[in-house]
């Protein structure tokens, strides 16, 4: 279970937020909402362990994630604003690299591509894909080996309606087997039984 206690962070001499108390249990989804600059991305990066909080802490099953960042990295999938694609490599090789880097079977790549309707585009260089296709390819990493915690930062940007459905289905399957999701989104990613967590813009 992921939990934060009295989490706060100062960036550039400005308190982005403070006193964040958030828990995410197995099968739960939390939708982060708030105006631009409220700190949704910052909170996701804190939960991933990419940032360190100024006060408070993030814990996993009671242990602070700062104690072992590598172990925390192995239990989560983070999808930020970038798609983390190398344009000179094929779509397949891009995904296969992440599978190998994580030490998981490369067999999962074809299924992950198919899930997002990219099966036919596997042999093409990522550089020729459209913005939406690149986004789908970036998100297809979610369908590689299973990890319990997903942290998604505006995953629906440049996705068409059908792909948003696919993503919602993927999140549903993930939760059905006890996965947790924290997602920052502005628009219509419909997640049943999701809790909404609102970040106010700091004064």
């Amino acid at each position: 279970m992921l939990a934060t206690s009295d989490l706060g962070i100062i960036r550039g001499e400005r308190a982005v937020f403070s006193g964040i108390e958030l828990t995410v249990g197995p099968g739960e989804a939390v939708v982060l909402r708030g105006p631009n600059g409220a700190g949704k991305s910052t909170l996701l990066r804190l939960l991933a362990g990419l940032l360190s909080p100024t006060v408070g802490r993030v814990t996993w099953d009671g242990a602070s994630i700062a104690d072992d960042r590598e172990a925390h990295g192995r239990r989560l999938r983070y999808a930020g604003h970038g798609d983390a694609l190398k344009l000179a490599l094929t779509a397949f090789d891009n995904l296969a690299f992440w599978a190998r880097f994580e030490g998981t079977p490369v067999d999962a790549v074809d299924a992950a591509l198919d899930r997002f309707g990219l099966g036919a585009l596997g042999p093409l260089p990522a550089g020729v894909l459209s913005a939406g296709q690149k986004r789908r390819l970036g998100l297809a990493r979610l369908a590689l080996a299973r990890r319990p915690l997903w942290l998604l930062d505006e995953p629906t940007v440049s996705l068409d309606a059908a792909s948003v459905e696919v993503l919602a289905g993927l999140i549903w399957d993930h939760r059905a087997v006890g996965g947790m999701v924290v997602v920052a989104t502005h628009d219509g990613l419909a997640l049943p039984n999701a809790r909404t967590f609102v970040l106010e813009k700091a004064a």
Partner: protein
Amino acid sequence: MSAFLALLRRDLRLAFAQGGSVGLVIGFFVIAATLFPLASGPERAELARVAPAVIWIGALLATLLSLDRLFQADLEDGGLDLLLLGGAPASVVVLAKCLAHWLSTGLPLVLVSPLLGLLLGLEPVGILMLVKTLLLGTPTLSLIGAVGAGLTVGVRRAGILIAVLILPLYVPVLIFGAGAVDLATLGLDTGPSLALLGAVLLVSLPVGTLGAAAALRLAVL
């Protein structure tokens, strides 16, 4: 280990792919070194005397040229976050990227250097020593350079900043590297110079990887 090999393989493929940096770096190295005889005149003895310095400085500058993309490309496409979250220690990520950088920059420079030695009229014994010193010295350039690349990742015009930060740290490698070639052409003992080059490499291995790893952790903040 799988993370190390996967990253090494990918970065090598990218470096040698179309639009990769290998050809550019070698081209720069060759052109920089051949500009010297054009500027100083074709006096053979004079050229042979400055050849070790010219080739070594060419190698330093060619290495610098490719350093600013070492982590920058991964930061820009968002991959750096994922590399650091992949479950492998950041130092493993840095080491794999440094090895890939050396194999795609340092090693090609070593392979081209005999040609430039010949061009500048270096004697065979000097050319042999040139290859030896570059082989020992260029990995150090990649490792020390990684710290500069890590510290400047996300900075605009990082290339010039890296040069200012890192070139002073390249001085020992330059002195012992070019010095050993001079000593060899004079028939003197090069053992101490090579030993010192090796020592600098051994020190830069932990300092470079851990330093760059710490710098990257700061950079993704």
